[in-house]
Every structure is written in structure tokens, then in C-alpha cells.
């Protein structure tokens, strides 16, 4: 059993051990372990394609309209908008988001839960939802933090797209207080 397996098995152990180890590792340390687990490259200054795939899959579960009135995150290019937004952030925040995505993608492989033991992007949608629920409602603050960070970034990527506004009744174009210069162009 290699060191990575040992670490992840230990992490999947008792709650106290998980919390303590998470505290010791920190997000950056956990992200490096995660990337090694996945066999993927990890950078502090950019997102790799596999991380954009994670983000895209997360977004497709974050906003899901059974009535079909809202476009999917993939349809509006929400992940690409997120990537552009992230690229404008200070270096430390880009690194943080890179680490968050790595831990989130790898967690599905190793952490206990009702989902199948595959990386997040390989799970079926119902298993992805179960996995997301585990992060959103976890009694470990670190996991809730990661969910909240992804939700915040994802919200910018999705809800800043014009195509998402009509179904929620929002509009810049129809806002009488907005001057013409802010109504021209924009993200569609």
C-alpha cells in the first residue's frame, strides 16, 4: 500500500482524524495529494483542462431545471465564463481555486459516501448529486467551505450570462435606470 493510499484511507477514517489531518494538510497539501491520486498535473497559476471539466460538471449539477426553462450550464458556456473570471483574480486566489477543484474531483474516488468510487466527472448524475450533497451538508467545515467556494464561482459563471436572465425575470436591457453604455454588448 503506497503512501497516497495510506493517506486517503486514514482520511476516510474517524471524523476527528479527518478534521485534524485536513487542518494539517491545508488546502494546498490536500490538492497535491488529490492530483497524485488522479494522475493529473496541478498548477498554482492556471486551471488545466481536467479541472475545467470538473467545474463544468459541477455547474451542470448546480443549476438543474426539470422544467427546461433555464439553459444548462454547458449551453451557456458557464465554465468558460468562470475560467475568464478566475484568470483576472490575484495569483493567490487562482491557486486556491485550482486546489479546490483538485480536492473536489479526487474526493469522489476516496471519500466514503453513497456514490460509486469514481472521480467526480465520471460519476452518473444521481451519484454526482449524492456526492455534492455530502459536501454541502458535511459537518466538516473544510468540506462545506469547498462546496461554498465552488458554488460562488459557479454562480458567477452561470448567472452572469444573459441567457439565464429571462426565466428569472432579471434584465439589464429593460432597466430604466441603466444608461445606454451599459446596455450595449455584454455576455450572451
Amino acid at each position, binding site marked *: 500500500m503506497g503512501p497516497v493510499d495510506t493517506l486517503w484511507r486514514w482520511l476516510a477514517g474517524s471524523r476527528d482524524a479527518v478534521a485534524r489531518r485536513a487542518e494539517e494538510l491545508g488546502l494546498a497539501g490536500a490538492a497535491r495529494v488529490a492530483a497524485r491520486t488522479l494522475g493529473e498535473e496541478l498548477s498554482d497559476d492556471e486551471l488545466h483542462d481536467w479541472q475545467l471539466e470538473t467545474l463544468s460538471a459541477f455547474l451542470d449539477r*448546480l443549476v438543474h431545471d426539470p422544467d427546461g426553462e433555464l439553459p444548462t450550464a454547458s449551453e451557456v458556456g458557464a465554465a468558460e465564463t468562470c475560467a475568464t*473570471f478566475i484568470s483576472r*483574480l490575484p495569483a493567490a486566489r487562482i491557486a486556491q481555486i485550482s486546489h479546490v477543484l483538485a480536492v473536489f474531483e479526487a474526493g469522489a474516488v476516496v471519500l466514503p459516501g453513497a456514490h460509486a468510487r469514481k472521480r467526480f466527472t465520471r460519476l452518473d448524475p444521481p451519484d454526482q448529486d449524492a456526492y455534492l450533497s455530502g459536501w454541502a451538508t458535511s459537518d466538516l467545515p473544510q468540506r462545506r467551505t469547498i462546496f461554498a467556494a465552488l458554488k460562488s464561482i459557479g454562480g458567477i459563471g452561470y*448567472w452572469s450570462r444573459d441567457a439565464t436572465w429571462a426565466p428569472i425575470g432579471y434584465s439589464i436591457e429593460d432597466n430604466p435606470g441603466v444608461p445606454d453604455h451599459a446596455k450595449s454588448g455584454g455576455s450572451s
Partner: protein
Amino acid sequence: MTEPGSMTRASDLDEVQLETDVLVVGLGAGGSMVFHELARAGVDVLACELGGEYEPEAMTCREDEMLPRLFMEGGARATRDFSVRILQGKGVGGSTIHNTNLCKRLPDEILRQWRDEHGLDGLTPEALEEDFAYVEQLMGVKRIPDERVNAQNAVLERGLDALNYAGGRMSHNRSHTDCKESGFCELGCPNNGKQNAAKVLVPAGLEAGGRVITGAQVTQLKERNSEVVGAHVAAVDPVDGRVQGHIGIRCERVVLAASATGSPSLYKASSLPDPNRLVGTNLHMHPAAVVMGAFDRDDDAPINGWLGNPQSVECTEVLEYEHDSDKRAWIVTGFAHPAGASTFVPGFGAEHTALMKKYGRLASLIVMLHDHSAGRVSPADGQAVNIDYKLSGEDYRALEVGIKAAGRLMLAAGAREVIAPLVQPVRATNEAQLDAAFTADNLGPLDPPLAAVHPMSTMWMGTTPENSVVDADGRHHLVRNLWVADGSLFPTSIGGPPQIPIYTFGRRVARAMLATM
């Protein structure tokens, strides 16, 4: 290199050495007031602002574009444990570019505490009257009229009336000519409607001969024999902070006005004297929770909270300033455009999406805590800062009181359902459910998610170096010719909007400095 009355980008000044009498670090409310007062008094004053200058035409009203421009760390700044998101402004005007223009003086009880418990004997309402009046006249403060109260604030007014709760209409510093009630205060006004630091103070200071450098991050203050003598400045991209060059500044005096996180971080990064280890401690921030109400019955009028003036009304029913009170919540309407709102709408997937589709039917209230918890700030890489802050048990109890009051206001105003974004979201249709859902025991880190926009108190006023960092005039106790003029000055949380107090103390600092020149 920089002429009187000029605003220059730091990236155009690489490897330049500048001289000035007074260096002002940061052009938020406090720094802009100091800049204004000193320039108009004929002082050679140079201000460095790490953000950019944004004309109204640059305000695009788009969250993904304006957050990186107007907010520190793109709006992603948070405490180290991520339990509180901290939104602080950058740019010429600082947080006054994105604030919602609420204007209030310091409460008399807060001033009494500062006099009695911090030795600041001169800070009486009478002594501050002339400065408050000057600021209010200069910044155009006026009561928000009936016709500028939007549907969301009308909800709060209905709730106040129905419950006979204390509170009422507030004052603001918008121009009733230029403000078109776009609802985009928080992303920068596209109509130049705010009578803020960028519109009122900085141009007048430039006209009087002051100089401004933008995209200029002061990274170190230089000190010799316990006296500031200059600063090192990094020319940075105003959006992402990438370093583009370096500038040296020689000066006689420095005013730190980089906010209650930026000022102590710069001080500590400069290794300036701090024998009592006070700088950066005592951090208060008014952490706030959101409570939503659904007005989604067929005969309910839409709320559309993004239209009109975001905040016009306050509830002070559960806002007391006595130390042992558990009523320490200031309640105003909360508001965000879709991306920002989505972070507070609970859950994900179909449940979250269903609520977002009710966006136009959701009213929201912010429960902002007059906090007793004290955190600390320390420097980190680039423009980041380390912020450590944990809410105490008594503050969670006060938050519980505030959240329940906000829920009652919503129900009294006619909400069908009260929604609060706890880990297990609360959805209550009556007061009994509301009371059962919220106890101080079920509140904790990220439960509910909190945001703060008023960091303060980290270089506070007092009488001695053992009990404070600066004196009542904002002058540093230990380092000569160093002054502080931002929210760091306040010894305690103030329980309300800080812009008028910060402008006011900026004026006082400038006056005290002029008396030494």
C-alpha cells in the same frame, strides 16, 4: 514626472523616485478626505491607490466584469477558515464606489464608550457636530424620499409598521439628479449618481494641486529613527495585481488609509515598531447573515429587489450598544444581482434552481451584527491578507436574535415563507417554526454563511501605546509623522454604516496634521 493636479498610472512611472510632503496610502473615504483637506490647504500631497480610476462609462453593470475591478481579491477575500466572506473596495474612491450610500453618524452610546472606556474624552457629540455637519453638507447627505423607496424596502417598512418595531427611513448621499435608481450601486454607479469620494473629494483635491497615482500598491514604509521617511511602491495591474514596476517615494509624513485590513498589513510588513503587539488585532467587521422572504402567491406584487435604491430603511428594534445586550443586530434590506444572490439561495440542483426562478419574488434582509468578537489581520502575498476571526458564543446568540427578528419582519410584511440558508435550510411559514428552527446552538462556521463589508478597529485610537495604536487625532503613538485615517481608528464596532464616521475622522486627522505643519 507627476505634475500638481495629475492622476497618473504607476506603470507609467517605473523606476521613478518621487518626493512629497505627505503620502496618503489609499483613496477610500478616509484617505480621500485627507487628500481633499490637505490639498485645499496648500499642502504638497501625493496619494497612492492600488486600484484603478473608473469613470461612469467604465461601469458595465456586469458582475463578472466589475467584481475583479472594484473589489479586493476579486470579491473572493475571506477569513482564513472561509467562514466570513469579506467584501472590500479598491479603486479611486475605495469602498465608496460600491457602497449603498447609507449615511449615519456615530451613535451617542458608542461615543460614550469611547470616552469612558478608551479615554477619548474629547469625542462628544457636541465636539464632533461641526465635523459631522461639514461632511454631510459636502457629501450631499439627505433623507431618502418616499418616491425612492423600492418594493423590497417597502417590505421592510410594512414589517416595521405591522410589528411597531423601531427603525425607519435612512439618509443617503446620492444626487437626486444624477441617480437614475438603476440598482447597480454595488457594482459601481453607471450614472455617476453617488456623491462619493471619487466624485466629490478627489477631483477637488486634484484641482487644488494634489497628485494621485493609481495602480500603486505601497508595499513598504521606510522608517529611520522611529520616523517615517518614505515608501516603496509596486506598480500593479489594478485588476489582477500583477507587478509591473517599482517606484520610490521620499516624504515627510504618511497617512495610512488602506482600510482596517490593508493599513495594519502594510505596517506589519514594514516591520515598524509594535512592542505591545497590538497592530492588526481587535478586528471587528459587522458580520452579516441573510434572511429571505418569499412573496410568491398569485396576488403578491413582485419584489424585483435589483431595481431602485438597494437600501432605504433600517430596523433598530434589536440594536443596542450596551456590552451585555444580546440585541446587537442592525437590519437593513439585503440585495444582490443574480450571481451574488445565488450564493445565499440555499442548496443546489432542482431545489436551488426553483428558488432562483423566484428571484423576482424574493425579498431579503441583512442581519448585520454589532460584533464583540475580535480577530486579527496579518500580511500575506501580493494583495492578499490573512484574516483570522471567529464568532464568539455571545455573538452567535445575538445573531440568532437578529435572524429571528428579520424572519418576523418578513412574515409580518406578508411573506408566505421565510428562507434562511443554513446547512439544513430553514423554511418557515410561521413564527413557531421560525423560533424552533433557530437556536444559537445550531449556528456555527458557514452555518449560516456570513459576509462582512465593514472591517474596522485594527489600529485604534486611545491614550497610550499600551492600550492603543494611535491617539485621538489618528497620530501613531510610537512612529513619528505616521497617521491613520480609515476604519482602523474605531476602538469598537460601531453598529452601523461607517462612511460618514470615516469621512469625519479623516477630516479630523487632516486638521490635526495641519496643526503640526
